[in-house]
């Protein structure tokens, strides 16, 4: 990345006074002026959309906490009171509930964008790792939030998911049970459990916010990746973040909020489960337990394996494998656009994940189980075999000489544009080993 010198000039005496003590305006100004690749497409708008989602969840969540009762005798009724009696309670709760789904939708698009364009490759490994951490904390937060209405699905989701840790009993006898009882604060899921889940559900979004700061900080050091995967080499490769990308992100956000609002106003319960409007009953498991849609692929992996411990290990591994993706991928080309073989495997992987999601919603029997096993196999095969091997055998397609050329098409245009850097220099080997 071109080193980003601060161009901020304090205009007034107050700004100068502040700038010498706490240069917070300079920080904001530098953020606005940050040189951003000029070729970012709409897949790059999901970072901003995710920030919006986090803000919506925190704001609506704080409001809900003013009316919600984290007590097993009162929780279910307090949620219904929010829905029926609290002014605008229905809107705030539906926004929060749908907001969780929208948050995951945006996160999944953002993750697949990173996978497609190689945004995890050097020097952005830490940006990616922080992103996987964000995903993990999001999962925990969403799981705890889902428990709070204390309906049947809430209760049994908590029972099933906390019991995952009891699989450790088969490694050290009693360890798993001890951990599960520590989480429960008793010998089964009770109101004690509900209250602690509520406490942590309130805490974790702020942990997410802190990791988001690190995530953004990290890619402000390396610079954004872009659809070509080429490094920024000249001034004409970039535009200031504001107004170019504030407007682009804003437009995408407007479209995204249309979808969001459609769910909130026309299908607020479509993504939920009707059984969660039945009060929690510790004596009766609902006939068909399924998690929220955003956990279905992982649930399918859990159920695909007929051994408790290995099922749990596979489920956790399916998320944790993302941490080592930067080192599993041997290709030196970042963008899949220039990877003719990997492109097919990428879309096959997307199909595998969607397939696992579908299978996770079906009962674990017959053909569903067979397919869940095939997809689970392919999920791990993709990471541990396809990613390393394809990178070694593939001959990448020719790449443009620079980001500017990828936009303007010819090197004359590139040189003329904005009086930039003249002739584009050859790029770094990491970005494009196959120069034309």
């Amino acid at each position, binding site marked *: 990345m071109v080193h980003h010198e601060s161009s901020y000039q304090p205009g007034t005496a107050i700004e100068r006074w502040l700038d010498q003590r706490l240069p917070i305006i300079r920080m904001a100004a530098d953020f606005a002026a940050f040189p951003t690749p000029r070729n970012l497409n709409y897949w790059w708008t999901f970072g901003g959309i995710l920030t919006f989602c986090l803000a919506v969840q925190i704001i609506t969540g704080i409001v809900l906490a003013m009316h919600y009762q984290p007590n097993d005798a009162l929780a279910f009724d307090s949620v219904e009171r929010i829905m029926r009696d609290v002014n605008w309670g229905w809107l705030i709760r539906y926004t929060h509930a749908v907001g969780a789904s929208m948050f995951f939708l945006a996160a999944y698009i953002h993750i697949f964008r990173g996978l497609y364009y190689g945004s995890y490759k050097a020097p952005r490994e830490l940006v990616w790792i922080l992103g996987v951490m964000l995903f993990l904390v999001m999962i925990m937060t969403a799981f705890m939030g889902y428990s709070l209405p204390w309906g049947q699905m809430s209760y049994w989701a908590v029972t099933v998911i906390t019991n995952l840790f009891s699989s450790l009993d088969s490694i050290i006898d009693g360890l798993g049970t001890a951990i599960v009882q520590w989480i429960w604060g008793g*010998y089964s899921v009770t109101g*004690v459990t509900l209250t602690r889940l509520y406490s942590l559900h309130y805490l974790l979004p702020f942990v997410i916010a802190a990791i988001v700061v690190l995530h953004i900080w990290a890619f402000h050091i390396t610079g954004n990746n872009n659809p070509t995967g080429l490094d920024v080499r000249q001034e004409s490769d970039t535009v200031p973040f504001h107004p170019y990308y504030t407007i682009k992100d804003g437009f995408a956000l407007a479209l995204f909020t249309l979808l969001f609002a459609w769910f909130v106003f026309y299908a607020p319960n479509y993504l939920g489960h009707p059984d969660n409007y039945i009060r929690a009953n510790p004596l009766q498991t609902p006939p068909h337990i399924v998690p929220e849609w955003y956990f279905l692929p992982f649930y399918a992996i859990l159920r695909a394996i007929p051994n408790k411990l290995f099922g749990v290990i596979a489920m956790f591994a399916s998320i944790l494998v993302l941490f080592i993706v930067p080192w599993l991928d041997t290709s030196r080309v970042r963008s899949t656009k220039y990877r003719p073989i990997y492109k097919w495997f990428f879309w096959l992987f997307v199909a595998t994940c969607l397939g696992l999601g579908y299978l996770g919603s079906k009962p674990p029997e017959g053909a569903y189980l067979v397919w869940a096993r095939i997809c689970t196999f392919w999920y791990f095969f993709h990471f541990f075999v396809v990613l390393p091997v394809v990178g070694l055998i593939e001959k990448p397609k020719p790449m443009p000489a620079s980001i500017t050329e990828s936009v303007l098409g010819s090197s004359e245009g590139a040189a003329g544009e904005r009086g930039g850097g003249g002739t584009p220099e050859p790029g770094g080997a990491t970005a494009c080993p196959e120069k034309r």
Partner: protein
Amino acid sequence: MAAAVEDEPTRRDFLVVASGAFVAVGGAAAMWPLIDQMNPDASSQALAAIEVDLAPIAPGQAITVLWRGKPVFIRRRTPAEIKQARQTPLEDLRDPYARNPELPPDAPATDANRTKKGHEEWLVLIGICTHLGCIPKGQNIGDKKGDYNGWFCPCHGSHYDTAGRIRKGPAPRNLDLPPYNFTSETMIKIG
């Protein structure tokens, strides 16, 4: 001479290491109450024993009672169900142990070890699937009882037989037995 003196630990080195160690141990010790507060509290640990009257239960019927926050299945088995459980060869079992708290941990999972002598028609089990804690189906009339005519867990498809032993599916263990005793011909005390 200078080198030899410098290698010797000084009083200051000792103080740095000692105070660092003190802070580390103290910090770790201060963590313990914060972790242990989450464990089951005194009121949860207080073990309640319950008595259950078995007189109204006819052969083939089952009831569910709550003990220590957990459902306990009590089934009065029919002769056919008992026969089915007894005739199962032990090598067909997924989990070879009886899981009876009153027997040694390595007691084999025979039907006799899963019931009380003289009360073989009564099967008393903790009704929590050993996979991920769902309540298996099979207590109510019309419930799906699974391929082995015992219980079937709808969550992830575990099948238990008429002695509550795991036969098929992801659950790792036979259904656990609670500690219980017959106080009369028709009364049991659980706990």
